Structures are given as structure tokens and as C-alpha cells.
């Protein structure tokens, strides 16, 4: 057990946790932020995507200990004051989700992309989102949702 400190969705946390757990386990099991999903635990599906010091990462591939001092954003921080972000609303309006299991990771990847490049092209969207798998939607509506924001809904 070791103590680490980190900032998650703007809140400061000090956590005692085993040294061998991943950031994903830390978020889900220790901070009870279960919005971030585990689809493979091997960096292959993107369901666990969070924003880590401004960059999208697979939380299953980072050790919790490495996250000491990090600033992290998860899906739970995306809606503010009980109001959906435009990106979340666009996912709903564009029918960009079905089972919803990939959705938190998709939204975090899209959020990181849009923060860095507010007007991505379709190719840039495809490139940035490639690591996020979805088995339900066929991706097209997800691209449309992101394009809608890139087109100015922000």
C-alpha cells in the first residue's frame, strides 16, 4: 500500500492503494468512478479512455503509482452542474450510442481531440478515434456527432 495524490475532475484526492493496480482499477474500485469502463484490460479497446494531463490514454495501461500528481478527467466530469456538455448532447442527438459501453471512452477521446483541435476534419476524427472500438453503431453516427461539434455547436 502506498499513498498517492491526484486531481480527478477538478477534485483533489489522496488514496492509499496497492502498488500493482492500474489507474483504471484505482478510478473504478477505489474512487468509485465506474463511468470509465473495462473492455479488455490490455490497451486494445479504448473503453477505459480518460484524459491524463491533457492527453487521452487507456487507463488500463497506466499504473496507479505513475498517476501520482496527475490531473485526470473522466466521463463523470463531462456534464457540468447537471447539464450535459454539447458533446454529450451531440452523441444523443446523432444516435451515436447503442449499448453505451464504449460511450464514455468515445466521449473522452473526442473531448481530448476537440480540446486540441476544435475543428478536426473527418480524417482527423477517424485518426484520433481509431483506438476506440464500438461493436454496435458502425461508427458513422459517432463521427457525425463529433463533426457536429467541430462544425460550431461548441
Amino acid at each position, binding site marked *: 500500500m502506498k499513498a498517492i495524490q491526484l486531481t480527478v475532475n477538478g477534485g483533489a484526492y489522496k488514496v492509499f492503494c496497492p502498488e500493482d493496480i492500474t489507474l483504471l482499477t484505482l478510478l473504478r474500485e477505489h474512487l468509485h468512478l465506474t463511468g470509465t469502463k473495462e*473492455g479488455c484490460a490490455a490497451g486494445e479497446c479504448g473503453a477505459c479512455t480518460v484524459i491524463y494531463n491533457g492527453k487521452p490514454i487507456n487507463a488500463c495501461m497506466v499504473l496507479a503509482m505513475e498517476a501520482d500528481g496527475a490531473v485526470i478527467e473522466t466521463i463523470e466530469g463531462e456534464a457540468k452542474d447537471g447539464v450535459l456538455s454539447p458533446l454529450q448532447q451531440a452523441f444523443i*442527438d446523432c*444516435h451515436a450510442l447503442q449499448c*453505451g*459501453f464504449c*460511450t464514455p471512452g468515445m466521449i473522452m477521446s473526442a473531448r481530448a481531440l476537440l480540446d486540441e483541435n476544435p475543428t478536426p476534419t473527418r480524417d482527423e476524427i477517424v485518426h484520433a478515434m481509431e483506438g476506440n472500438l464500438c461493436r454496435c453503431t458502425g461508427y458513422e453516427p459517432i463521427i457525425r456527432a463529433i463533426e457536429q461539434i467541430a462544425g460550431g455547436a461548441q
Partner: protein
Amino acid sequence: MSHIGKSVIRHDGVQKVTGRAEYLADIKLNGMLYAKMLASPHAHARILRINTEKAKALPGVRAVLTGKDDNAMVGIYMVDRSALAQDKVRHWGEAVAAVAADTEAIAEEAVRLIEVEYEVLPIIFDAQEAIQPGAPQVHEQAESYDYIKGVFHPEPGRNIANRTKVRRGDVDEAFARADVVIEHTYEQPQVFHVPLEPHGTIVQWGAEDYVKIYSSTQSPFAVRDLFAHSFNLPRNKVEVIAPYVGGGFGGKSGIHLEPLVGMLSKRCGGRPVKLIPTREEECATLPSRQGMVSKVKTGAMRDGTIIAEEVEYLWVGGAYADYGVNISRAGAMTACGPYHIENVKADSVTVYTNHVFGTAYRGFGHPEVFFGIERQRDLLAKELGMDPVELRLKNLLMPGKETITGELITENTGRVDQCLKVVAEKLKVSEDYTAAERAEMEKTGKYRGKAAAVLQKSPAMPTWSASSAIIHMNEDGTVHITVGGVDFGQGTYTVLQQIASERLHIPIEKISMAPGVNTDMSPYDWQTVASRMTVLCGNALCDACDDLEAQLLEMGGVVLRAGKHELGLADEHVYVKQNPHQRVSYAQICMGYTYENGNAVGGPMIGRGKCIAQGLTNIDPETGQGKTALDWTYGAHAVEVEVDVRTGDVEVLHMASCMDVGRVMNEAMLNGQVVGGVLQGLGTTLSEAVYYDAEGNLLTRNLTDYKIPTFKDLPGNLDVSYIETPQLDGPYGARGVGEHPLISITAVIANAVANATGTEIYELPLSADKVRAALRQTK
């Protein structure tokens, strides 16, 4: 109509985009233990000895189980599998032992401490060899298994879990007089479902045998039924809760890990035990789609009329029957596609092998059957020098014709010919490329080709498959719907809300549905499979709405002092037709009506509704004749591909899909099913395949080796359209459609590759290396 057909947004969107939707993995119970399984490292081996002493001695371990302990036999149609392997293992990855411990880490360590001694047995991997007399048996004691007699036809001693036959006319006589006869063999590997959320379950086997099961399942009532059956428990002592489910595609129907976890919980004095397989276990321990070898022999006249077809479908069922036996049955019913053929002989056989076992997968055998059948149509057209679209149109099922199982097609059945014409026209499938285009292809080495293919499917389900619905009103006249089917993303619940809104004249935002199903509280539904929810559950809800409407009219009549026939419903009110200003709101009467002096009459209003499949029959065991289709949904795809003959890469440039859905209920949701289904089909076609080494060890154990389509794999464009031939007994004319878009994708792409390159490929997937190799061979 104001609500039907509209692209109403999904009811659970907010929960899902905020991360608040609770899936199985997100549930924690007090005192919960964590389970891990030990998987077999062999495809076929006798278990000589298992030593669990070290595992049991590890602090924090609460139970260790092997097949020697109390074990449960499971199987939805053929009871041939035990929750933990007994005596021998039959596929790589089969669960041999399981542990429940205080933490996942302890459970993992304990599993590593279990020692198993195996005697490796020869593997049975080739379906054609497996059915030969004298072949080693996957199940030596097959004749002792319990199964649904009269419906399935196992052949013990031949590795055959089921054979379903269709016999019509006289194929031998017809082949003798046919102008051309062609015969081909097609092969398809197993594929994985890959729901983003793995399976998972929590079971609490409480005192007095009250069992509570949380499960990521498409079929909560089937889990209850099969669990209760396995342990001989009354249904009212087993409660199954399905929370949000992260995709299933057929893989989460039936029963899976629940019996094993139930036994662990019982061993641990009733503490809840949670098991979520790893992605590797999801691949190896949980079932896949069956592989298939199909032999198709077709006889036709010069003018293109198909007069005979003989097929043999060998389904690579893997180690256990599971849904496989019913898939071979469904495959027989649809054996020749939506064509009118007078002389048919079909044998559809589920073969036990030492592969990971097969189960239901979106399309339930149809995608596999249609690969061979729709390839065969193009090959026949080539042989006859005919346009393949024209050849199909000549033979398609039309009103007045009969299916191969003797079902009469009527004007109300749906129009496959129109679907085909629409897509063929959209992509100009029958038009040749110009000389200039051809010259360009020669120059670049990238050859384009086009093709079209048709599809059909009806639900494959028991004749008595039923649904029910409850709709109750709240104090303010808002309503709540409860059903027993699961919405795991396909959007059924949103469509149900639209139906209730339409029926009861209530705005859709006043109609709610709780996520998930609880068998103790939700009304019965057979299973969420077979594209049956909109039709059967939709009809049950219509029935419930009618019941509620009758209550509203009755109570409204009391208050308004009018007879039922004088009243109507509009705008959340019961009103007098002749004098519409005389009205009473739902809110005033739905909990009973209170007069000024305080007297009250009536009471809370609850509508109940039910629906059972109408008119289905068992089939004749010798000829396969009978009525098994509740509703047919037809469709067609057309595609233009570009094949890089140097690399073997197949790029999908354009696609058009058209489905006869009866009635579009929610266009955006429907598009979601089509676009998602087509892409899943492209995965099956171009990249997905389960691979093993020569010893039967599974090689594809993760999402790097097993590739599903990503954002990069979208077709250039996909044009989706619908035809609406109403299903007269479907809600508002709707037909099922969830599985259909995936059917025939493999065939249409392979046909287009042949059209582009002249090379015929009979095996999936059409990965670049395979295509390249095939191109080399034909050069």
C-alpha cells in the same frame, strides 16, 4: 400518426453519456467475493488428477471447486455440458476449476496454485472426418444426454448433435434433366461476438435456496428457467436481474456462467460471488459463432430456372451443442434462401469437434447459409452466361409460391424482388465498366467489381414463444412500461415508448421505462433474440395499451356520464365525441375519481398485455415441412469493391442496402441497426476469424489478434433504404430487423471480388493474404 416512424432519441441516452448507466461490472454487494476460473491448456484431454490443496490453503480463499464436486449439467436444447469439466476437457479454454476469494488478486493466485494432470487425447477438428463411422468421439456418452425429443435429432457415435432434414420433390430426377449442374464447397471459420462488455454475473445463493442472480444477459427469463432446471429449484426462488447490458449479438442469450458462480456462492455460505471473464476467457471459455462447411449442388435450365438444389451444411459446433443444434435447424429451414425451388434436399448437421463451442450469433445461422447460397447464385449465372441479378429475379419467392418448407408466400409476406431491384439500380450493378475505366484498372492494378445479393430471415424460436407487457399510470397521468425483454442498445424500449405514446395520446416524455429486467418484477418474455422484440413485445404492449384504454374509457364514462362508444381519447383526456369540451384528464381518473363530497370510485389503472407466436407448427422430422416463420424480413445488399491485385486488399467503395421492414418505427434506430450490422458483416468478411494451432490451442485470444472493424474500416459510403410491406399482425405493420443487415454481406463482397478479378474465392475471411494467394493461384 404522430409518433410512429419518427427518429425519437433513445430513452437511456443521458444515463449512457454521463457514465451513470450501471452495468454488471459496476455492481458491488456487501460481502461480495470474486471468482476466477482455471482454463484447460488442451483442446482434448482426460483429467487424471486435480490437486487443490495449495489453493485451498491460501488465506482469503473461500471456495475451490472442480468437476468432481457437485456439478451442474447445463444446455439450452441438449444437456451436454457441465459447469466445470468432468473427466475430460473438450476444448482449449474450458473451465476446469474455479475459486472464490476475498479479492480478485487472491482468486488469481489461488487459480495458479491448482495443479491438474492431463492425458492428452487426439483432437477432432475436421467436421467431415468427425462424422465418419469410427471417428473418435467428443462425447462418448452422447446417448445418455437429455434433449428436446422430436425437435432435435442427435446421432450418437457420429459426433452429430443434431441433423435437420428438408425433403421436397425428387432432386435426383431433377438433376438428371437439368441443363447445367454446378457444385461447390464453401468454408467459414468461427467468429467471435466481441461485445465491448464481456459476460459477467453475480450470484447469491441464499438461505433456503433463494437465489439472486445479476447477469449481463439478453435472456433473463431463460437464465431463470435453465438455472432452476439445472438445480431443480422452483422458478419463484430464482430471481434474475439484468442491468444495462453492453452488447450481446446473441452471445449473451441462453445460460453461461451463472450455474458455476451459483455453486461457488452456495459453497461460500451464500455470500455473493462475482465473475467477470477476462477478454481471453471471453474468447476461449465462452462460446463463439459456429464455423461451417457447406456443400451446395444446384441444377438449372438454360433459361436460368433453378429446378433442384441439394445442400449439406456441416456446422462446426465445437465441444458442446448449446444453441448450435437449433442453428442447424434454422439453417435447414432457410437452406436455399428466398427462392422458389421445386426439388430440394437439405441436411443441416451440428458436428461436435474440439473447437470452442458455438452459440447464437446475430443472424442465427443465416449469414453462414447465405455465404454459400448467394455465392452459388453468381457462380450459376456465370456458368449460364446470365446477369446474376436477372437470374435471381427469375427464381425469387413471389406471392403464390411456396418456400422449401411448404409455406405459402402471399402479398403480405414481403418483397425480396423489390429490395434487390432497388440496390441493383442504385449501384448500377448490371452495367459494365467502360473501356476507359477498364484501362485505368489495368494501369493501377486496382480492379473494381460490383455485385448484389439477397437475404431473408424469420425468427427461429419455439412455436410457443411469448411476450408480455405491463403499463401502469402514475398519479399525474404519466405512465410507466414494464416488459421482460432487454434493451441492450438496439432501441426496443424507445420504440415501445413510441407505441404507447401513439396508442394512449400521451407525449413521449411522459412515458418511462426503467432500464433492465428483474424476473421477480417484470412480466415474462421468452428471450431477447431473433429480432422478435418489436413484433412480439410490441404487440404485447399494444394489447396492454388497449386494456388501459378500456379502463380509461370506463372510468371516463362514469365521470362524464356517457357510454364507451360515445367517448374518445385525445391529449391526455377522455372526451365526449359529440361535445369535445366535455372531458376529464387522465390524471383525474387514473388513481380513481374523487367526487366533491369525498366519495371515490375506481382505483389505480394498470394495463396488461400479452402476445404469443401465432400459427407456428412443429416440422415433419423426415421432410422438414411445416410453418416455422412468424414474420419474414427480406432485404438485399449491393456493393462495389476495389481489389488491389498486388496486395490483395479489398476496399469497399460503395454499398447500398434495402430491407423490407414492414413499417419504419424509428428511422434513426433502424439506421443504427443497419449501419452497425453491415459493419459487423464486413468484419466477418474481411478480417475476423478464430484461429487455432495444429494441437487445437486457440491462437486468437485478444483484440489485437482478433480484429473487429475500427473507425478506419467504414465503407466509402452506405446508402440505406426501406420498403414497407406491412406485416398485418405486427405492431403498425412492423417486422423484425435487428439481425438482418449482417446477412449476405460475406457473399456480396466475395461476388464483387470475383466480378473485379475473375477469381472465385470459396473461403472466408477475404483477408489480404488470402485474396492475394487466391489471385496468384488462378493466374
